[in-house]
């Protein structure tokens, strides 16, 4: 076992030395640092100059989550380029075969490259550390939030790295595998969102709805009932497709914190509330009595708010399933790469030379 890890370590350090001596990597980190600096400064100015908000907690909470989302976004955007040519790029450079004739096994090769791609992506997290510390301190972010958000972020970057390395083993042309990695990441982030919206609209069912002409706040009664039939989208049936979305996973996994009105105090909670709301049946308010309650509430001056706390408490968490789905994808990609890179090779891609 230790011999196996030794081999993985040699490949890992070889990959890191190859990557870290490239200029592109440092340029990207610099650009990333600049963007985060800009976001942090602008958000801080907006919030601290605003007299309506007295407590720094109001900015710190959202700011920390904003930085985390940005690291995830940029990591997801950059990691495919960093990992999507790990194996076929070596083949093009003529260094894959010379590695494969040594005593390195295919698994050591694939895992070493995967770890290197992962650690490279984590470089973005390292660069964002000053901003995370600043926003966490200013906003008094809870240790639980910090711990869980970081863990999930690290995991998500690993999933992208694994998909990239896996596809670079499965696909012969580096450019093509990088593009396919981007498509895979796009499918997870945008694709699940589009599928969710289209799915909900496609599944819409006709429902009888009730409405009132006037409401009387004093007596708490409604008059002028009329009913109408309207198709409603059934997001409660297809919310599951959002589960493997990296942004949903991170929002769903971090325990939500609320202000005194029951609203989410950071972006994790806001997104979580939005995503969890989809689970609620559209038929909740389609009795005359429920419709009256709703109308009274909408009309009231004392808006009681969306009550994120209540929605989140009564709906099902999806992050564990999401992570499981992602892990299956990542492992499948790495397995595929292993099968295609195994030597002695049974088949070669058309027009490719092994050496």
């Amino acid at each position, binding site marked *: 076992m230790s*011999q196996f890890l*030794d*081999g993985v370590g*040699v*490949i890992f350090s*070889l990959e890191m*030395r*190859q990557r870290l*001596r*490239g200029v592109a990597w440092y340029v990207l980190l610099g650009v990333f640092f600049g963007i985060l600096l800009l976001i942090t400064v602008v958000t801080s100015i907006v919030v601290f100059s605003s007299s309506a908000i007295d407590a720094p907690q109001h900015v710190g909470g959202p700011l920390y989550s904003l930085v985390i989302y940005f690291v995830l976004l940029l990591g997801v955007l950059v990691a495919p380029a960093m990992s999507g040519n790990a194996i076929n790029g*070596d083949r093009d*450079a*003529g*260094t*894959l*075969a*010379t*590695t*494969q*004739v*040594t*005593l*390195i*096994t295919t698994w050591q090769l694939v895992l070493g490259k995967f770890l290197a791609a992962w650690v490279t992506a984590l470089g973005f997290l390292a660069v964002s550390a000053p901003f995370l510390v600043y926003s966490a301190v200013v906003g008094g972010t809870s240790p639980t939030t910090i711990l869980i958000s970081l863990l999930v972020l690290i995991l998500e970057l690993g999933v992208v790295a694994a998909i990239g390395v896996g596809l670079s083993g499965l696909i012969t042309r580096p450019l093509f595998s990088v593009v396919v990695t981007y498509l895979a990441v796009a499918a997870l982030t945008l694709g699940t969102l589009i599928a969710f919206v289209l799915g909900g609209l496609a599944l819409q069912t006709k429902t009888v709805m009730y409405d009132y002409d006037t409401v009387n706040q004093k007596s708490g009664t409604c008059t002028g009932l009329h009913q109408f039939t309207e198709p409603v989208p059934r997001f409660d049936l297809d919310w599951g497709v959002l589960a493997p979305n990296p942004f949903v996973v991170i929002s769903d996994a971090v325990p939500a914190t609320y202000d005194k009105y029951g609203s989410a105090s950071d972006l994790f909670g806001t997104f979580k509330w939005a995503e969890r709301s989809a689970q609620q049946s559209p038929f909740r308010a389609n009795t005359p009595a429920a419709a009256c309650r709703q109308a009274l509430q909408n009309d009231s001056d004392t808006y009681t708010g969306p009550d994120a706390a209540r929605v989140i408490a009564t709906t099902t968490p999806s992050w564990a399933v999401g992570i499981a789905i992602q892990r299956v994808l990542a492992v499948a990609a790495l397995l595929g790469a292993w099968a295609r890179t195994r*030597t*002695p*090779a*049974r088949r*070669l891609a*058309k027009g490719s*030379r*092994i*050496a």
Partner: protein
Amino acid sequence: MVDSLARSFGDVHAVRDITFTAPAGAVTALIGPNGSGKTTLMLMLASLLRPDAGSIRVAGSDPVASPAAVRAVLGWMPDALGSWDSLTVRSALTTTGRLYRMNRADAAERASVLLDLVGLNDLASQPTRVLSRGQKQKLSLARSLIHDPQVLLLDEPASGLDPLARADLQVLVRRLAAEGKTILVSSHVLAELDEMADTAVYVDAGVTASAERIAESKTSQRLWRIRATDAAALDRALTKIGISIETRVTDRGETSVPVSGEADAAALLAKLVKAGVAVSSFAPAVGDLEHTFLDLNRPTERPDASTGTSTKGGVR
């Protein structure tokens, strides 16, 4: 070592039927035209490619069944010049050593020895991307030797090397063979293989040439080049010996004469000396390997003095 090996890529039958044995302690040349399956054969020997049929034994191990055993004793210098761009020459070698499960100290020591051996000491701390083609070739050779392999596969080792480096390579290869290693070399520069190789395997269209055909080509007519201090005397003597003027080609003060095999050539030289011609150079127009190679590839054509690069080997 190799028995009726076959491998195809889709419709392309790169290797159809190759059978040969490369003995230990000798240099075996692998000769064949472009696209004859030499590199494919090397890849199968190096345990990178699985044969469709046939069997291989490298130092007693089967590269398909136990690739690790083969890799431990085999050094492969590929025809492609790949190197880790941003690593220094020295660290490229130590990393290769580490890939062969050597510990850090052993790998570093071995790298130093090999840098010395191939003459890359001055460039040891340069990144490999600045190396010239020939220097990369040297690095590739050093890399293939890092774990002191028993069997060495050299695919076009001399391409890109300057004449001095070629000579060094020859000496090194001969020395390794003398140490008892099995060496298989493929090259297009047949003259060079002539001086390096003990035996040769001829491959054409994925098939090894049979021993009979090789023997046949040894006795087939080939041109010998003769240079004499007095060209006119040589001319007269040749006519007297009975070699008709039509078959002789005179070019740059040298006369090429067709003879059949070594014995015939020796007899001709004896006659010329007896006739009092002052012969200063008497050698085959092309090297042994080249002659066989050309003969096998063009069985119907007569070897011609203008084909191939002329080689001046032999006694002078």
